[in-house]
């Protein structure tokens, strides 16, 4: 099956290795992976800032770019959630509505896709240590991602998962919220960091770049340079960086 990788603008800019990890995983599950090179962003920043017109513009662009793919997979619950839950809503009553519904039905968050569609067997990764998992809001509450990453992490040799308290509570990222309401956002990140630290894990693993940058940024500001923050794809593919 032909899988279009929607790499997301944050992975593109901040952590390209996560994109390659996603390709590795999809390929080891037997998928043909294509990467439409004109892709940029799903439009969520515009959508959540109330700029519907800009959001529609970018949604149409995503639709065009991934028209030829059987599936669209993103290493992010937030961006895949934007496409699956909100693209159709953006075009309710407009000619593109049915196309958007089709696109939405083909769009998956990476771990959900690996478990429920591609049925990935073994994973290449190895990790010696204890990790804890943060459930990102859109992944959990829009895309139903909860057991999938845990199921996959259980296959990683050497890895031990230890759940933290309040793993389902928002880390405070919230897109432009993190900048507009920096103080509140940082406080929410701080609460999350305390739960991460209390779990005693060597690394926090999660599935969304926004949460990743937010939590890692707060951990470092608190002086914690020890707890690693990793995307689930990196850990599964065994290519986590420095």
């Amino acid at each position, binding site marked *: 099956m032909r899988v279009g990788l929607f*790499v997301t*603008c944050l*992975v*593109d*800019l*901040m*952590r*390209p*290795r996560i*994109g*390659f990890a996603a390709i590795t995983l999809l390929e080891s599950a037997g998928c043909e992976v294509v*990467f439409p*090179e004109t*892709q*940029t*962003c799903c439009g969520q*920043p*515009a*959508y*959540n*800032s*109330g*700029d519907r017109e*800009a959001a529609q*513009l*970018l949604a149409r*662009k995503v639709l065009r770019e991934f028209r030829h793919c059987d599936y669209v997979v993103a290493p992010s619950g937030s961006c895949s959630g934007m496409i699956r839950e909100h693209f159709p809503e953006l075009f309710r009553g407009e000619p593109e509505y049915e196309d958007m519904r089709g696109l939405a039905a083909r769009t998956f968050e990476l771990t959900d896709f690996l478990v429920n569609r591609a049925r990935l067997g073994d994973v290449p990764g190895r990790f010696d240590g204890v990790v804890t998992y943060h459930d990102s*809001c859109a992944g959990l*509450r*829009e895309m139903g991602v909860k057991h999938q990453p845990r199921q996959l992490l259980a296959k990683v040799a050497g890895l031990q998962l230890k759940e933290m308290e309040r793993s*389902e*509570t*928002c880390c*405070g*990222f*919230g*897109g432009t*919220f*993190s*900048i*507009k*309401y*920096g*103080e*509140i*956002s*940082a*406080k*929410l*990140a701080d*609460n999350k960091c305390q739960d991460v630290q209390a779990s005693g894990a060597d690394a926090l693993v999660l599935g969304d770049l926004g949460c990743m*940058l*937010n939590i*890692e*940024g*707060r951990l*470092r*500001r608190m002086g914690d340079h020890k707890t690693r*923050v990793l995307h689930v794809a990196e850990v599964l593919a065994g290519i986590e*960086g420095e």
Partner: protein
Amino acid sequence: MQVRSMHFKAAASQKLADRRLQDALRKTQGKFVAGRAQAILELENFDEIRDAARRIRDRVLEHLDLYLEQFERNATARGAVVHWAENAEEANRIICDIARVHGVKKAAKSKSMVSEECALNDALEAAGVQVVETDLGEYILQLANEPPSHIVAPVVHKSKDEISDLFERHHQRARKESVPDLCREAREVLRPHFLSADMGISGANFIVAETGSTLIVTNEGNGRLCTTMPRVHVAITGIEKVVPTLEDVTTLLRLLPRSATGQSITNYVSVTTGVRAPGEEDGPEHFHIVLVDNGRSRLLGTDFQAMLRCIRCGACMNHCPVYQTIGGHAYGWVYPGPMGSILTPSYVGIENALDLPNASTLCNQCGVVCPVKIPLPELQRKLREKQVERRLRPWTERLALRLWAYAAAQPEIYSLGARLAARMLRRMGGSERLIHRLPPGASGWTQGRDMPAPEGKTFHELYRQRSAGR
């Protein structure tokens, strides 16, 4: 109540630094969240009940005029007088008139958020009526001269020590330290007021169209005293609170206390129907029901109609990470948290509460727990769209969004920008790979955290390199 929502940011900042508030919030949130989680397990079909409840509320809102008229007919037939108030001033005028006609000197009041909307106490005091709040939380706030910070637990922001101080100062009795002692003292002070009040004022959680009844759920019993002891009873509530039948009420009551406090049922569920009939021993001689619009009917037929389903359980704020970090006062009006972020701009004007719909991560924890499935984040987003449509956002933000959207629609321009940004930010991160200070526009991020630096090249670049090398 005066609207202070435009000062949200400054207020939130102050609340974040308030240790006592932070402790108080942490203590109660755990209780509410765990309590609800436990209580909903008692119901095998919780989600189906939620759907049924939503349908009941939607049906009412689709035919609000019909149910309200039915309510008025049935309430009137049982000797109550129904008044219609278009706004807060009208509600206050109606109730002050009732007080005057009946020569009321003192009113004993049970909890009502609509009366907070109207600032009813101020109006009555100005008309020479002494108002005594009898809900323990509201009584404490009346002594402290503060507004509630939560719709169900109005005094959630106060510590026990602060309450001990307040009681000692106002009651002029020996300082009480334990919760039972404090409650006993409040009860002793309040009892004489129930007996001497000429008027009882209550809210209504629901009003029932088929019987013309008003219904309140309480835990302290003060509500029942207020609605039965004084010779005049005034119930004030919003027009959206009508429910067709008592049967419908039972469905909603399976959800309300469980979602609010984690109780299967509250200590009291009081249904008040009509005035004291000949031969009956208690109940008021006069029963006035004041139905307040105050902006509600404006939401009918709009995207925001769903908000009127709200049954005021407070689960959205109990589960909101933002509310739990800053408390209710920062929101600046009667209704805090996610429900307030929709109701406040809807009732007092979008332009008077610009921060509220934006000060949310859209995490949807509120939507998940709402017993009547109000899509709160979706409504917050729709309010953001309205702000954009009405050009209420700062021009800098509008320009930045436009530029970004323009670039994101042009792959070449976008990819050039991304490549430049990746390199610049990588350099800013230095050897630690951490950016301690982002430039204006993004500096909100680095107020309280670092920004991890990017790897230095974009995925697009590396992918192209890899494809070329294959």
